[in-house]
Protein backbone atom coordinates (compact mmCIF):
# COMPACT_ATOMS: atom_id res chain seq x y z
CA UNK A 1 0.00 0.00 0.00
CA UNK A 2 1.58 3.22 -1.12
CA UNK A 3 0.23 5.92 1.09
CA UNK A 4 2.28 8.57 -0.66
CA UNK A 5 0.09 8.20 -3.71
CA UNK A 6 -2.89 9.43 -1.77
CA UNK A 7 -0.95 11.89 0.34
CA UNK A 8 -2.98 14.87 -0.92
CA UNK A 9 -6.11 13.10 0.18
CA UNK A 10 -4.67 12.20 3.57
CA UNK A 11 -3.42 15.72 4.14
CA UNK A 12 -6.83 17.04 3.29
CA UNK A 13 -8.53 14.58 5.59
CA UNK A 14 -6.30 15.33 8.54
CA UNK A 15 -6.56 19.01 7.74
CA UNK A 16 -10.32 18.93 7.59
CA UNK A 17 -10.56 17.16 10.93
CA UNK A 18 -8.05 19.55 12.41
CA UNK A 19 -10.00 22.49 11.11
CA UNK A 20 -13.12 21.10 12.70
CA UNK A 21 -11.33 20.65 16.00
CA UNK A 22 -9.96 24.14 15.93
CA UNK A 23 -13.41 25.35 14.98
CA UNK A 24 -14.81 23.67 18.05
CA UNK A 25 -12.36 25.06 20.52
CA UNK A 26 -11.37 28.43 19.12
CA UNK A 27 -13.17 31.38 20.67
CA UNK A 28 -15.66 33.08 18.43
CA UNK A 29 -13.61 36.15 17.63
CA UNK A 30 -10.62 34.12 16.51
CA UNK A 31 -12.46 31.70 14.29
CA UNK A 32 -11.36 33.32 11.10
CA UNK A 33 -7.92 31.84 11.68
CA UNK A 34 -9.55 28.71 10.47
CA UNK A 35 -9.63 30.14 6.98
CA UNK A 36 -5.89 30.48 7.12
CA UNK A 37 -5.54 26.97 8.42
CA UNK A 38 -7.72 25.62 5.63
CA UNK A 39 -5.67 27.51 3.06
CA UNK A 40 -2.52 26.05 4.55
CA UNK A 41 -3.95 22.57 4.31
CA UNK A 42 -4.88 23.13 0.70
CA UNK A 43 -1.43 24.44 -0.02
CA UNK A 44 0.18 21.42 1.57
CA UNK A 45 -2.12 19.10 -0.35
CA UNK A 46 -1.24 20.98 -3.52
CA UNK A 47 2.47 20.51 -2.91
CA UNK A 48 1.86 16.84 -2.23
CA UNK A 49 -0.07 16.57 -5.47
CA UNK A 50 2.70 18.30 -7.38
CA UNK A 51 5.18 15.66 -6.29
CA UNK A 52 2.91 13.04 -7.83
CA UNK A 53 3.21 14.47 -11.33
CA UNK A 54 4.42 11.90 -13.74
CA UNK A 55 3.25 8.90 -11.78
CA UNK A 56 0.81 6.53 -13.29
CA UNK A 57 -0.68 4.09 -10.88
CA UNK A 58 -3.83 2.22 -10.06
CA UNK A 59 -3.97 1.72 -6.33
CA UNK A 60 -6.17 0.24 -3.61
CA UNK A 61 -7.23 -2.82 -5.46
CA UNK A 62 -7.73 -0.93 -8.68
CA UNK A 63 -10.07 1.60 -7.20
CA UNK A 64 -8.09 4.80 -7.37
CA UNK A 65 -6.13 6.28 -10.26
CA UNK A 66 -3.15 8.53 -9.91
CA UNK A 67 -2.02 9.93 -13.23
CA UNK A 68 -1.39 13.27 -14.89
CA UNK A 69 -5.05 13.95 -15.42
CA UNK A 70 -6.10 13.29 -11.86
CA UNK A 71 -3.16 15.18 -10.43
CA UNK A 72 -3.93 18.21 -12.54
CA UNK A 73 -7.57 17.98 -11.64
CA UNK A 74 -6.64 17.72 -7.98
CA UNK A 75 -4.57 20.85 -8.26
CA UNK A 76 -7.46 22.64 -9.88
CA UNK A 77 -9.82 21.43 -7.19
CA UNK A 78 -7.47 22.79 -4.55
CA UNK A 79 -7.28 26.09 -6.36
CA UNK A 80 -11.06 26.18 -6.52
CA UNK A 81 -11.34 25.55 -2.82
CA UNK A 82 -8.69 28.12 -1.98
CA UNK A 83 -10.40 30.75 -4.09
CA UNK A 84 -13.76 30.11 -2.51
CA UNK A 85 -12.21 30.28 0.93
CA UNK A 86 -10.83 33.69 0.07
CA UNK A 87 -14.26 34.75 -1.11
CA UNK A 88 -15.83 33.29 2.01
CA UNK A 89 -13.71 35.14 4.54
CA UNK A 90 -15.73 38.35 4.40
CA UNK A 91 -19.03 36.56 3.86
CA UNK A 92 -18.81 34.37 6.93
CA UNK A 93 -16.99 36.80 9.15
CA UNK A 94 -18.65 36.64 12.57
CA UNK A 95 -21.02 33.93 11.45
CA UNK A 96 -22.18 31.76 14.31
CA UNK A 97 -20.55 28.79 12.61
CA UNK A 98 -17.61 30.48 10.98
CA UNK A 99 -14.96 27.99 11.99
CA UNK A 100 -16.71 24.87 10.77
CA UNK A 101 -17.45 26.33 7.39
CA UNK A 102 -13.90 25.82 6.27
CA UNK A 103 -13.84 22.32 7.61
CA UNK A 104 -16.98 21.46 5.73
CA UNK A 105 -15.57 22.98 2.61
CA UNK A 106 -12.49 20.81 2.92
CA UNK A 107 -14.65 17.72 3.36
CA UNK A 108 -16.51 18.62 0.21
CA UNK A 109 -13.23 18.96 -1.62
CA UNK A 110 -12.17 15.55 -0.36
CA UNK A 111 -15.31 14.17 -1.94
CA UNK A 112 -14.48 15.72 -5.25
CA UNK A 113 -10.89 14.49 -5.11
CA UNK A 114 -12.12 10.97 -4.44
CA UNK A 115 -14.55 11.29 -7.31
CA UNK A 116 -11.94 12.62 -9.70
CA UNK A 117 -9.58 9.71 -9.06
CA UNK A 118 -12.19 7.00 -8.88
CA UNK A 119 -11.62 3.89 -10.93
CA UNK A 120 -14.15 1.77 -9.14
CA UNK A 121 -17.90 2.12 -8.98
CA UNK A 122 -17.94 2.18 -5.22
CA UNK A 123 -15.34 4.90 -5.18
CA UNK A 124 -17.45 6.97 -7.52
CA UNK A 125 -20.51 6.47 -5.37
CA UNK A 126 -18.53 7.50 -2.32
CA UNK A 127 -17.10 10.55 -4.02
CA UNK A 128 -20.48 11.66 -5.26
CA UNK A 129 -21.97 11.14 -1.84
CA UNK A 130 -19.25 12.88 0.11
CA UNK A 131 -19.17 15.91 -2.11
CA UNK A 132 -22.95 16.13 -2.20
CA UNK A 133 -23.34 15.94 1.54
CA UNK A 134 -20.92 18.79 2.01
CA UNK A 135 -22.62 20.65 -0.78
CA UNK A 136 -26.05 20.39 0.78
CA UNK A 137 -24.89 21.85 4.03
CA UNK A 138 -22.85 24.56 2.37
CA UNK A 139 -25.81 25.72 0.31
CA UNK A 140 -27.99 26.14 3.38
CA UNK A 141 -25.22 27.23 5.68
CA UNK A 142 -27.34 30.10 6.85
CA UNK A 143 -30.17 28.07 8.25
CA UNK A 144 -32.38 31.04 8.79
CA UNK A 145 -32.52 31.90 5.11
CA UNK A 146 -35.73 30.34 3.81
CA UNK A 147 -34.63 30.65 0.20
CA UNK A 148 -31.48 28.71 0.91
CA UNK A 149 -33.48 26.06 2.71
CA UNK A 150 -35.84 25.70 -0.16
CA UNK A 151 -32.94 25.47 -2.57
CA UNK A 152 -31.24 22.85 -0.51
CA UNK A 153 -34.45 20.86 -0.36
CA UNK A 154 -34.60 20.76 -4.13
CA UNK A 155 -30.89 20.10 -4.34
CA UNK A 156 -31.27 17.28 -1.90
CA UNK A 157 -34.27 15.66 -3.51
CA UNK A 158 -32.71 15.75 -6.95
CA UNK A 159 -29.47 14.55 -5.45
CA UNK A 160 -31.03 11.68 -3.56
CA UNK A 161 -32.98 10.51 -6.57
CA UNK A 162 -30.04 10.75 -8.96
CA UNK A 163 -27.77 9.04 -6.47
CA UNK A 164 -30.21 6.17 -6.53
CA UNK A 165 -30.00 6.18 -10.31
CA UNK A 166 -26.23 6.14 -10.12
CA UNK A 167 -25.99 3.27 -7.70
CA UNK A 168 -28.67 1.35 -9.55
CA UNK A 169 -26.86 1.82 -12.82
CA UNK A 170 -23.68 0.59 -11.21
CA UNK A 171 -25.54 -2.33 -9.68
CA UNK A 172 -26.67 -3.34 -13.15
CA UNK A 173 -23.17 -2.98 -14.54
CA UNK A 174 -21.92 -5.06 -11.66
CA UNK A 175 -24.53 -7.68 -12.38
CA UNK A 176 -23.59 -7.73 -16.04
CA UNK A 177 -19.87 -8.04 -15.41
CA UNK A 178 -19.32 -9.32 -11.92
CA UNK A 179 -16.85 -6.59 -11.13
CA UNK A 180 -17.03 -3.16 -9.67
CA UNK A 181 -13.60 -2.16 -10.87
CA UNK A 182 -14.16 -0.13 -14.02
CA UNK A 183 -11.44 -1.67 -16.15
CA UNK A 184 -12.37 -5.22 -15.27
CA UNK A 185 -16.02 -4.36 -15.66
CA UNK A 186 -15.46 -3.35 -19.26
CA UNK A 187 -13.53 -6.49 -20.04
CA UNK A 188 -15.93 -8.88 -18.38
CA UNK A 189 -19.13 -7.39 -19.65
CA UNK A 190 -21.50 -10.23 -20.42
CA UNK A 191 -22.36 -10.60 -24.09
CA UNK A 192 -25.83 -9.78 -25.29
CA UNK A 193 -28.39 -7.71 -23.39
CA UNK A 194 -27.58 -4.41 -25.00
CA UNK A 195 -30.83 -3.05 -23.64
CA UNK A 196 -29.80 -3.66 -20.06
CA UNK A 197 -26.40 -2.16 -20.72
CA UNK A 198 -28.01 0.91 -22.22
CA UNK A 199 -30.30 1.33 -19.24
CA UNK A 200 -27.34 1.02 -16.93
CA UNK A 201 -25.35 3.61 -18.86
CA UNK A 202 -28.25 6.02 -18.93
CA UNK A 203 -28.75 5.64 -15.20
CA UNK A 204 -25.08 6.25 -14.56
CA UNK A 205 -25.20 9.30 -16.79
CA UNK A 206 -28.12 10.65 -14.82
CA UNK A 207 -26.25 10.07 -11.59
CA UNK A 208 -23.03 11.67 -12.67
CA UNK A 209 -24.95 14.33 -14.54
CA UNK A 210 -26.24 15.51 -11.22
CA UNK A 211 -22.73 16.36 -10.11
CA UNK A 212 -21.57 17.68 -13.44
CA UNK A 213 -24.76 19.63 -13.93
CA UNK A 214 -25.82 18.40 -17.32
CA UNK A 215 -29.28 17.59 -18.55
CA UNK A 216 -31.37 15.81 -17.33
CA UNK A 217 -30.10 16.17 -13.77
CA UNK A 218 -29.31 19.86 -13.81
CA UNK A 219 -32.46 21.21 -12.20
CA UNK A 220 -30.93 21.81 -8.83
CA UNK A 221 -28.22 24.04 -10.12
CA UNK A 222 -30.00 27.33 -10.76
CA UNK A 223 -31.86 27.18 -7.48
CA UNK A 224 -28.95 26.08 -5.37
CA UNK A 225 -26.51 28.50 -6.91
CA UNK A 226 -28.89 31.39 -6.65
CA UNK A 227 -29.70 30.82 -3.02
CA UNK A 228 -26.25 29.83 -1.84
CA UNK A 229 -23.74 32.37 -0.69
CA UNK A 230 -21.41 33.44 -3.45
CA UNK A 231 -18.32 31.49 -2.41
CA UNK A 232 -20.37 28.34 -2.09
CA UNK A 233 -22.05 28.91 -5.42
CA UNK A 234 -18.65 29.43 -7.00
CA UNK A 235 -17.32 26.26 -5.44
CA UNK A 236 -20.33 24.18 -6.42
CA UNK A 237 -20.31 25.42 -9.96
CA UNK A 238 -16.73 24.30 -10.43
CA UNK A 239 -15.40 21.59 -8.17
CA UNK A 240 -18.03 18.85 -8.51
CA UNK A 241 -18.22 19.49 -12.22
CA UNK A 242 -14.55 18.93 -12.86
CA UNK A 243 -14.44 15.85 -10.69
CA UNK A 244 -17.60 14.36 -12.13
CA UNK A 245 -16.51 14.86 -15.71
CA UNK A 246 -13.20 13.19 -15.08
CA UNK A 247 -15.01 10.33 -13.35
CA UNK A 248 -17.36 10.10 -16.27
CA UNK A 249 -14.37 9.90 -18.57
CA UNK A 250 -13.07 6.99 -16.52
CA UNK A 251 -16.42 5.20 -16.66
CA UNK A 252 -16.99 5.77 -20.33
CA UNK A 253 -13.51 4.77 -21.34
CA UNK A 254 -14.10 1.42 -19.67
CA UNK A 255 -17.19 0.67 -21.74
CA UNK A 256 -16.46 -1.19 -24.95
CA UNK A 257 -17.40 0.87 -27.97
CA UNK A 258 -18.46 -2.25 -29.82
CA UNK A 259 -21.26 -2.78 -27.35
CA UNK A 260 -22.61 0.67 -26.99
CA UNK A 261 -22.02 3.85 -28.96
CA UNK A 262 -21.58 5.99 -25.90
CA UNK A 263 -19.96 8.92 -27.68
CA UNK A 264 -23.22 9.41 -29.53
CA UNK A 265 -25.17 9.35 -26.28
CA UNK A 266 -22.82 11.89 -24.77
CA UNK A 267 -23.00 14.00 -27.90
CA UNK A 268 -26.77 14.19 -27.66
CA UNK A 269 -26.59 15.08 -24.00
CA UNK A 270 -23.95 17.69 -24.76
CA UNK A 271 -26.10 19.23 -27.46
CA UNK A 272 -29.17 19.41 -25.27
CA UNK A 273 -27.25 20.64 -22.24
CA UNK A 274 -25.44 23.51 -23.85
CA UNK A 275 -28.50 24.72 -25.70
CA UNK A 276 -30.72 24.41 -22.67
CA UNK A 277 -28.33 26.23 -20.39
CA UNK A 278 -27.75 29.03 -22.83
CA UNK A 279 -31.38 29.57 -23.69
CA UNK A 280 -32.45 29.52 -20.07
CA UNK A 281 -29.76 32.03 -19.18
CA UNK A 282 -31.13 34.57 -21.59
CA UNK A 283 -33.86 35.87 -19.38
CA UNK A 284 -32.21 35.71 -16.00
CA UNK A 285 -31.88 38.82 -13.91
CA UNK A 286 -30.16 37.35 -10.88
CA UNK A 287 -26.47 37.12 -11.56
CA UNK A 288 -25.84 33.93 -9.66
CA UNK A 289 -28.73 32.25 -11.39
CA UNK A 290 -27.46 33.44 -14.72
CA UNK A 291 -24.04 32.09 -13.97
CA UNK A 292 -25.64 28.82 -12.91
CA UNK A 293 -27.25 28.41 -16.28
CA UNK A 294 -24.04 29.42 -17.92
CA UNK A 295 -22.33 26.76 -15.87
CA UNK A 296 -24.83 24.19 -17.13
CA UNK A 297 -24.07 25.10 -20.70
CA UNK A 298 -20.36 24.88 -19.96
CA UNK A 299 -20.89 21.27 -18.92
CA UNK A 300 -22.25 20.70 -22.36
CA UNK A 301 -19.11 22.08 -23.93
CA UNK A 302 -16.92 19.97 -21.71
CA UNK A 303 -18.78 16.88 -22.83
CA UNK A 304 -17.37 17.51 -26.28
CA UNK A 305 -14.02 16.34 -25.03
CA UNK A 306 -15.58 13.17 -23.63
CA UNK A 307 -17.32 12.51 -26.91
CA UNK A 308 -13.96 12.61 -28.62
CA UNK A 309 -12.24 10.45 -26.05
CA UNK A 310 -11.94 7.30 -28.18
CA UNK A 311 -10.83 9.09 -31.33
CA UNK A 312 -8.50 11.81 -30.23
CA UNK A 313 -5.42 11.70 -28.08
CA UNK A 314 -5.90 15.40 -27.54
CA UNK A 315 -9.29 14.95 -25.91
CA UNK A 316 -8.11 14.55 -22.35
CA UNK A 317 -5.62 17.43 -22.46
CA UNK A 318 -8.35 19.50 -24.06
CA UNK A 319 -10.71 18.63 -21.24
CA UNK A 320 -8.14 19.49 -18.62
CA UNK A 321 -7.29 22.75 -20.25
CA UNK A 322 -10.92 23.63 -20.48
CA UNK A 323 -11.23 22.82 -16.79
CA UNK A 324 -8.54 25.36 -16.03
CA UNK A 325 -10.04 27.94 -18.31
CA UNK A 326 -13.48 27.43 -16.87
CA UNK A 327 -12.15 27.55 -13.34
CA UNK A 328 -10.42 30.87 -13.90
CA UNK A 329 -13.28 32.46 -15.76
CA UNK A 330 -15.99 31.25 -13.45
CA UNK A 331 -14.18 32.39 -10.37
CA UNK A 332 -13.51 35.74 -11.92
CA UNK A 333 -17.21 36.18 -12.51
CA UNK A 334 -18.29 34.89 -9.13
CA UNK A 335 -15.72 37.02 -7.36
CA UNK A 336 -17.20 40.12 -8.93
CA UNK A 337 -20.67 38.95 -8.00
CA UNK A 338 -19.39 38.42 -4.49
CA UNK A 339 -17.84 41.83 -4.40
CA UNK A 340 -21.17 43.32 -5.38
CA UNK A 341 -22.99 41.24 -2.80
CA UNK A 342 -25.18 38.74 -4.68
CA UNK A 343 -26.63 41.28 -7.06
CA UNK A 344 -28.97 41.35 -10.01
CA UNK A 345 -27.77 42.47 -13.40
CA UNK A 346 -28.91 46.02 -12.80
CA UNK A 347 -26.78 46.30 -9.68
CA UNK A 348 -23.66 46.16 -11.78
CA UNK A 349 -24.57 49.24 -13.75
CA UNK A 350 -21.77 51.68 -14.19
CA UNK A 351 -19.30 49.52 -12.35
CA UNK A 352 -16.65 50.45 -14.89
CA UNK A 353 -16.66 53.99 -13.53
CA UNK A 354 -16.59 53.10 -9.86
CA UNK A 355 -14.33 50.05 -9.98
CA UNK A 356 -12.75 49.63 -13.38
CA UNK A 357 -10.77 46.64 -12.17
CA UNK A 358 -13.88 44.74 -11.14
CA UNK A 359 -15.70 45.59 -14.34
CA UNK A 360 -12.72 44.56 -16.40
CA UNK A 361 -12.42 41.32 -14.49
CA UNK A 362 -16.06 40.59 -15.13
CA UNK A 363 -15.75 41.39 -18.80
CA UNK A 364 -12.63 39.30 -19.21
CA UNK A 365 -14.14 36.39 -17.31
CA UNK A 366 -17.43 36.36 -19.15
CA UNK A 367 -15.79 36.80 -22.52
CA UNK A 368 -13.47 33.97 -21.64
CA UNK A 369 -16.48 31.83 -20.79
CA UNK A 370 -17.88 32.81 -24.16
CA UNK A 371 -14.63 31.81 -25.81
CA UNK A 372 -13.16 35.03 -27.06
CA UNK A 373 -9.51 35.07 -28.06
CA UNK A 374 -6.93 35.38 -26.72
CA UNK A 375 -8.46 34.38 -23.39
CA UNK A 376 -8.20 30.93 -21.93
CA UNK A 377 -11.77 30.12 -22.81
CA UNK A 378 -11.01 30.58 -26.46
CA UNK A 379 -8.09 28.21 -26.43
CA UNK A 380 -10.25 25.78 -24.50
CA UNK A 381 -13.04 25.97 -27.01
CA UNK A 382 -10.62 25.79 -29.87
CA UNK A 383 -9.27 22.56 -28.45
CA UNK A 384 -12.75 21.21 -27.86
CA UNK A 385 -13.86 22.01 -31.38
CA UNK A 386 -10.68 20.47 -32.70
CA UNK A 387 -11.17 17.20 -30.88
CA UNK A 388 -14.83 17.12 -31.89
CA UNK A 389 -13.74 17.49 -35.51
CA UNK A 390 -11.18 14.78 -35.03
CA UNK A 391 -13.89 12.48 -33.73
CA UNK A 392 -16.03 13.40 -36.73
CA UNK A 393 -18.64 15.08 -34.65
CA UNK A 394 -18.63 18.15 -36.84
CA UNK A 395 -22.29 18.83 -36.19
CA UNK A 396 -21.64 19.00 -32.50
CA UNK A 397 -18.80 21.47 -32.97
CA UNK A 398 -21.02 23.62 -35.16
CA UNK A 399 -23.77 23.49 -32.59
CA UNK A 400 -21.31 24.42 -29.88
CA UNK A 401 -20.17 27.37 -31.96
CA UNK A 402 -23.74 28.53 -32.41
CA UNK A 403 -24.22 28.16 -28.70
CA UNK A 404 -21.27 30.41 -28.09
CA UNK A 405 -23.10 33.05 -30.06
CA UNK A 406 -26.20 32.47 -27.96
CA UNK A 407 -24.18 32.84 -24.82
CA UNK A 408 -22.62 36.07 -26.01
CA UNK A 409 -26.01 37.68 -25.81
CA UNK A 410 -26.53 37.18 -22.12
CA UNK A 411 -22.92 37.79 -21.25
CA UNK A 412 -23.26 41.14 -22.98
CA UNK A 413 -26.39 41.75 -20.96
CA UNK A 414 -24.15 41.64 -17.92
CA UNK A 415 -21.14 43.44 -19.31
CA UNK A 416 -22.90 46.23 -21.18
CA UNK A 417 -24.56 47.96 -18.21
CA UNK A 418 -21.26 47.97 -16.39
CA UNK A 419 -19.75 50.06 -19.12
CA UNK A 420 -22.70 51.95 -20.51
CA UNK A 421 -24.96 52.96 -17.69
CA UNK A 422 -24.54 55.52 -14.97
CA UNK A 423 -23.18 54.09 -11.76
CA UNK A 424 -25.67 52.40 -9.46
CA UNK A 425 -23.34 50.66 -7.11
CA UNK A 426 -22.09 52.75 -4.23
CA UNK A 427 -20.76 50.14 -1.81
CA UNK A 428 -17.22 49.28 -1.07
CA UNK A 429 -16.22 45.89 -2.42
CA UNK A 430 -14.43 43.44 -0.20
CA UNK A 431 -10.71 43.49 -0.93
CA UNK A 432 -10.49 39.69 -0.97
CA UNK A 433 -13.14 39.49 -3.62
CA UNK A 434 -11.38 42.09 -5.71
CA UNK A 435 -8.13 40.19 -5.44
CA UNK A 436 -9.73 36.91 -6.44
CA UNK A 437 -11.47 38.61 -9.35
CA UNK A 438 -8.34 40.26 -10.60
CA UNK A 439 -6.18 37.19 -10.21
CA UNK A 440 -8.76 35.05 -11.96
CA UNK A 441 -9.06 37.47 -14.84
CA UNK A 442 -5.31 37.63 -15.14
CA UNK A 443 -5.24 33.85 -15.13
CA UNK A 444 -7.80 33.80 -17.93
CA UNK A 445 -5.53 36.01 -19.95
CA UNK A 446 -2.25 34.31 -19.14
CA UNK A 447 -3.63 30.81 -19.56
CA UNK A 448 -4.70 31.75 -23.04
CA UNK A 449 -1.34 33.17 -23.97
CA UNK A 450 0.75 30.60 -22.19
CA UNK A 451 -1.23 27.69 -23.44
CA UNK A 452 1.83 25.78 -24.58
CA UNK A 453 2.85 25.25 -20.98
CA UNK A 454 -0.25 23.21 -20.46
CA UNK A 455 -0.18 21.17 -23.58
CA UNK A 456 3.27 19.94 -22.86
CA UNK A 457 2.27 16.99 -20.82
CA UNK A 458 1.85 13.68 -22.61
CA UNK A 459 -1.66 12.59 -23.32
CA UNK A 460 -2.64 9.95 -20.81
Amino acid at each position, binding site marked *: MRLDLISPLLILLVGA*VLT*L*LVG*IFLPRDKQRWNAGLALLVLGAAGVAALTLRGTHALIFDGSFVVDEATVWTQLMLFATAAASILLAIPVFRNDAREGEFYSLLLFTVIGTVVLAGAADMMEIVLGVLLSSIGGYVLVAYRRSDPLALEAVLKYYLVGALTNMALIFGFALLYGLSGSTQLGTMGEQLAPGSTLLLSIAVVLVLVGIGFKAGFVPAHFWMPDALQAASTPVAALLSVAPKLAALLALAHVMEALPLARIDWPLVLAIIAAVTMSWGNLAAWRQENLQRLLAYSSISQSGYMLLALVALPDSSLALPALLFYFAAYLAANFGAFAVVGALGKPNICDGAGLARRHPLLALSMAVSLLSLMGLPPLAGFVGKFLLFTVAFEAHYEWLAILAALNSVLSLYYYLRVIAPMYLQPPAYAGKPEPWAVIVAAVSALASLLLGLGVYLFLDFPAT
Partner: protein
Amino acid sequence: MSAYQQVLLFALAGLLTALVLLGIGRYVNARLNTEPARRPFESGEAPQVHAWSRFHVRFLNYALIFLLFDMEMVFMYPWAVVFLDEGWKAFTEMGMFITILVLGILYAWRERAFDWD
Protein backbone atom coordinates in the same frame (compact mmCIF):
# COMPACT_ATOMS: atom_id res chain seq x y z
CA MET B 1 -33.60 -28.35 7.53
CA SER B 2 -31.34 -25.41 7.03
CA ALA B 3 -30.21 -23.00 9.72
CA TYR B 4 -32.46 -20.23 8.53
CA GLN B 5 -35.45 -22.53 8.42
CA GLN B 6 -34.75 -23.17 12.07
CA VAL B 7 -34.70 -19.41 12.62
CA LEU B 8 -38.03 -19.20 10.91
CA LEU B 9 -39.41 -21.94 13.16
CA PHE B 10 -38.32 -20.08 16.28
CA ALA B 11 -39.95 -16.88 15.12
CA LEU B 12 -43.07 -18.81 14.18
CA ALA B 13 -43.17 -20.36 17.62
CA GLY B 14 -43.29 -16.91 19.18
CA LEU B 15 -45.79 -15.72 16.64
CA LEU B 16 -48.12 -18.64 17.07
CA THR B 17 -48.04 -18.43 20.85
CA ALA B 18 -49.01 -14.79 20.68
CA LEU B 19 -51.73 -15.45 18.15
CA VAL B 20 -53.13 -18.34 20.13
CA LEU B 21 -53.30 -16.23 23.27
CA LEU B 22 -54.97 -13.41 21.37
CA GLY B 23 -57.34 -15.87 19.83
CA ILE B 24 -58.34 -17.30 23.19
CA GLY B 25 -58.91 -13.85 24.53
CA ARG B 26 -61.05 -13.00 21.54
CA TYR B 27 -62.98 -16.24 21.85
CA VAL B 28 -63.83 -16.05 25.50
CA ASN B 29 -64.71 -12.36 25.53
CA ALA B 30 -67.12 -10.32 23.50
CA ARG B 31 -65.35 -7.24 22.26
CA LEU B 32 -66.34 -4.23 24.27
CA ASN B 33 -67.39 -1.61 21.82
CA THR B 34 -69.50 0.76 23.82
CA GLU B 35 -68.90 4.47 23.70
CA PRO B 36 -67.32 5.35 27.05
CA ALA B 37 -64.93 2.47 26.85
CA ARG B 38 -63.71 3.52 23.47
CA ARG B 39 -62.61 6.88 24.75
CA PRO B 40 -58.88 7.17 25.13
CA PHE B 41 -57.39 7.50 28.54
CA GLU B 42 -58.29 10.67 30.40
CA SER B 43 -61.80 10.52 29.12
CA GLY B 44 -63.41 13.88 28.75
CA GLU B 45 -60.54 15.23 26.78
CA ALA B 46 -61.50 14.03 23.33
CA PRO B 47 -58.60 14.56 20.94
CA GLN B 48 -58.89 17.63 18.73
CA VAL B 49 -56.24 16.58 16.29
CA HIS B 50 -55.43 13.09 15.27
CA ALA B 51 -52.46 12.04 17.32
CA TRP B 52 -50.63 10.72 14.28
CA SER B 53 -50.31 14.10 12.67
CA ARG B 54 -48.06 15.26 15.46
CA PHE B 55 -44.66 16.21 14.26
CA HIS B 56 -41.95 15.36 16.69
CA VAL B 57 -39.06 17.19 15.24
CA ARG B 58 -37.01 16.86 18.39
CA PHE B 59 -36.58 13.17 17.93
CA LEU B 60 -35.32 13.65 14.43
CA ASN B 61 -32.23 15.23 15.90
CA TYR B 62 -31.35 11.97 17.57
CA ALA B 63 -32.40 9.92 14.62
CA LEU B 64 -30.00 11.91 12.53
CA ILE B 65 -27.01 11.35 14.72
CA PHE B 66 -27.94 7.74 15.25
CA LEU B 67 -28.05 7.04 11.55
CA LEU B 68 -24.52 8.25 11.15
CA PHE B 69 -23.14 6.31 14.07
CA ASP B 70 -25.10 3.23 13.22
CA MET B 71 -23.01 3.04 10.09
CA GLU B 72 -19.93 2.83 12.21
CA MET B 73 -21.24 -0.45 13.56
CA VAL B 74 -21.83 -1.74 10.09
CA PHE B 75 -18.15 -1.30 9.41
CA MET B 76 -17.15 -2.66 12.78
CA TYR B 77 -18.65 -6.11 12.34
CA PRO B 78 -16.43 -7.13 9.43
CA TRP B 79 -13.56 -5.37 11.10
CA ALA B 80 -13.99 -7.45 14.24
CA VAL B 81 -13.77 -10.64 12.24
CA VAL B 82 -10.49 -9.80 10.58
CA PHE B 83 -9.05 -7.88 13.50
CA LEU B 84 -6.78 -10.62 14.79
CA ASP B 85 -5.42 -11.40 11.34
CA GLU B 86 -4.71 -7.83 10.40
CA GLY B 87 -3.34 -6.79 13.77
CA TRP B 88 -2.11 -3.28 14.35
CA LYS B 89 -3.01 -2.13 10.87
CA ALA B 90 -6.66 -2.82 11.52
CA PHE B 91 -6.30 -1.24 14.93
CA THR B 92 -4.91 1.97 13.44
CA GLU B 93 -7.43 2.14 10.66
CA MET B 94 -10.36 1.72 12.96
CA GLY B 95 -8.67 4.14 15.32
CA MET B 96 -8.63 6.84 12.68
CA PHE B 97 -12.19 6.07 11.75
CA ILE B 98 -13.40 6.17 15.33
CA THR B 99 -11.41 9.26 16.16
CA ILE B 100 -13.19 11.16 13.46
CA LEU B 101 -16.53 9.84 14.66
CA VAL B 102 -15.80 10.78 18.24
CA LEU B 103 -14.95 14.24 17.05
CA GLY B 104 -18.37 14.19 15.48
CA ILE B 105 -19.92 13.41 18.86
CA LEU B 106 -17.86 16.17 20.37
CA TYR B 107 -19.08 18.57 17.76
CA ALA B 108 -22.68 17.54 18.20
CA TRP B 109 -22.31 17.96 21.94
CA ARG B 110 -20.91 21.44 21.55
CA GLU B 111 -23.73 22.25 19.17
CA ARG B 112 -26.08 21.19 21.98
CA ALA B 113 -27.64 18.56 19.80
CA PHE B 114 -28.16 16.38 22.89
CA ASP B 115 -29.89 18.99 24.94
CA TRP B 116 -33.61 18.72 25.15
CA ASP B 117 -34.71 22.12 24.00
